[in-house]
């Protein structure tokens, strides 16, 4: 086992651990902090896969901007630990069965299929660099790239429209 492989296993362990902790933490602030850890370890995976640009963007956008937003919202809502909604046992059992089944199916699918391996000799180490990414983004993926701007515009218009102050009282 060379150092890359052992580093991969270490990162994977940390990713899964922090992802599980996001779900099981009772305090939402802790959840968010674990989520930040998960994003950092995922960025580690990107670097292992030679996607340096993606790793940097992941840290800047997700671990930076979006997490600040998350923390801000959580502090804004002032969530208390005790007003958590109690779930019935049946819901818990059903959720466990469904989740377990999905896990078994996905795990079984992974075990039974052959994942095509790549040949390290003709692997282009520059594949994840900005230059290559730019070439692909503005040539092959030009149309979805441009139309993604419509998506952002829709989100922005919607946010402004919903965020405007409304005069008058609410009704049912």
């Amino acid at each position: 086992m060379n150092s890359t492989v052992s580093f991969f296993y270490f990162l994977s362990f940390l990713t899964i651990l922090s992802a599980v902790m996001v779900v099981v933490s009772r305090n939402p602030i802790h959840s968010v902090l674990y989520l930040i850890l998960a994003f950092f370890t995922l960025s580690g995976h990107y670097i292992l896969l030679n996607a340096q640009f993606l790793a940097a963007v992941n840290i800047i956008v997700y671990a930076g901007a979006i997490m600040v937003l998350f923390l801000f919202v959580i502090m804004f809502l002032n969530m208390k630990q005790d007003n958590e909604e109690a779930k019935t046992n049946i819901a818990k059992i059903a959720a466990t069965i469904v989740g377990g089944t999905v896990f078994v199916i996905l795990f079984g699918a992974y075990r039974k299929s052959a994942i095509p391996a790549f040949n390290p000799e003709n692997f282009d180490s520059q594949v994840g660099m900005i230059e290559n990414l730019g070439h692909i983004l503005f040539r092959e993926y030009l149309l979805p790239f441009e139309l993604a701007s419509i998506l952002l515009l829709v989100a922005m218009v919607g946010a402004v429209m919903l965020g405007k102050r409304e005069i008058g009282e609410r009704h049912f």
Partner: protein
Amino acid sequence: MYPIVLLSFFGIVTLFLGFSKSKNILLPATLLFLIIALAGNFLEWNKGPLLYFYDMLRVDNVTLAFNGIILLSAFMIFAISGGFQDNPDSEPAEYFGLMLFSLVGALMMVGFQHLIMLFIGVEILSVAMYVLTGSNKRNLRSNEAALKYFLMGAFATGFMLFGITLLYGATGSFKLEQIQGFASNMQVGSESYILYAGLLLLLIGMLFKVSAAPFHFWTPDVYEGAPTIFTTFMSTVVKTAGFAALFRLLSGSFTGVYGFWWIVIAAIAVLTLLVGNIGATSQNSFKRMLAYSGISHAGYLLIALTALSKPSQNAIIFYSLAYSLSTICAFGVLMLVSKEKTIGGQPNEYYDAFNGLAKQNPLLAFVLTVSMLSLAGIPLTAGFWGKFFIFTSAAERGIIWITVIAVLMSTVGIYYYFRVIISSYLKEGDLVKIRVAPFYKVILVLATFLTILFGLAPGIFEGLI
């Protein structure tokens, strides 16, 4: 190709038109934009399959037919919105802009040839719909509907994205043709189960968008909470685009593994039919009934997808058209009638609002009757032939049992569709004459005329596609 570019541009123009003092220009301008987009759409008719932008988008006559249905429905809905003049709180420029942008998403879903296009299309359409659902900001039900739709829709998007990722992992490509090549060449014994898992997750995401059971739980609440004009948009444009996307996905890249997925879709189709039709019988609100009816029609369309035989393509196109026309009529009449008698300041959307409609408003009652007959699938309306073509496609594949269930369920449908007809013709009511704007009347009459025309001559477009 042209309508996507045109509508993206026109959407921005519409937002700028909102700066002008007079809001009267918005409605004619957007209607003009839609006519231009429709004309641009049919410029490419019969030009053969065209691929644009490195195989991102495919334009053939099927794409153009679906685009035509979507743009025509949008035109009618825009027209009956009346420019939102009657509501002083409304922001027409934003509404029209968002709807034009959401049409871009719908057209992307129709013509996609690459899964990224599908994803961005679904997201543009959905995000615009989340916002429009919540556009009646002071109404708590509208707020609740928007939040519910948004949270569940985001969850469904997660499934879809995970499915696309697994498909990429299995096949090494996002392109429909290459996925098709991979799926067709799988050997027995060395199938890629990751492909199956990816397909299932992608289907979950898409079936959520077309409100098939068991992913339908959001539909009644969201359809009821949203302002009626946007409910109309959701149940016509979004549904047509969703089925066009499902059809393209399944026929374009998964015919090789038909044996794997057909039973899944068949089971979901049967469940959707049961939930939609039986759920609709117990509703007291007409609008909620139409939401359940939307679920049941998704079930009929899923039958055509299950069969995926030669007539399926035409069946889906014809059914979407018939369903859209009738739904626009039904919601159009509902919008007029519900404003007459309000409950606590809110439009009355219950069945009893229609009591005695025929006495003073024979035209509205007639429009409503034709649309209900068409939705129920009574002969001499377009809905009958839509169902007929769908059952033909299932029979072609030899799946008779599903047709039997569907016929049984459509007899259940007669019960709840006829309730409103009985209300408007036989029950006593004190509805006065409702003033209908001339343009509104033209659209309702046009949709009714088309419903009857397709009912009398269903083969009018045969052989074109």
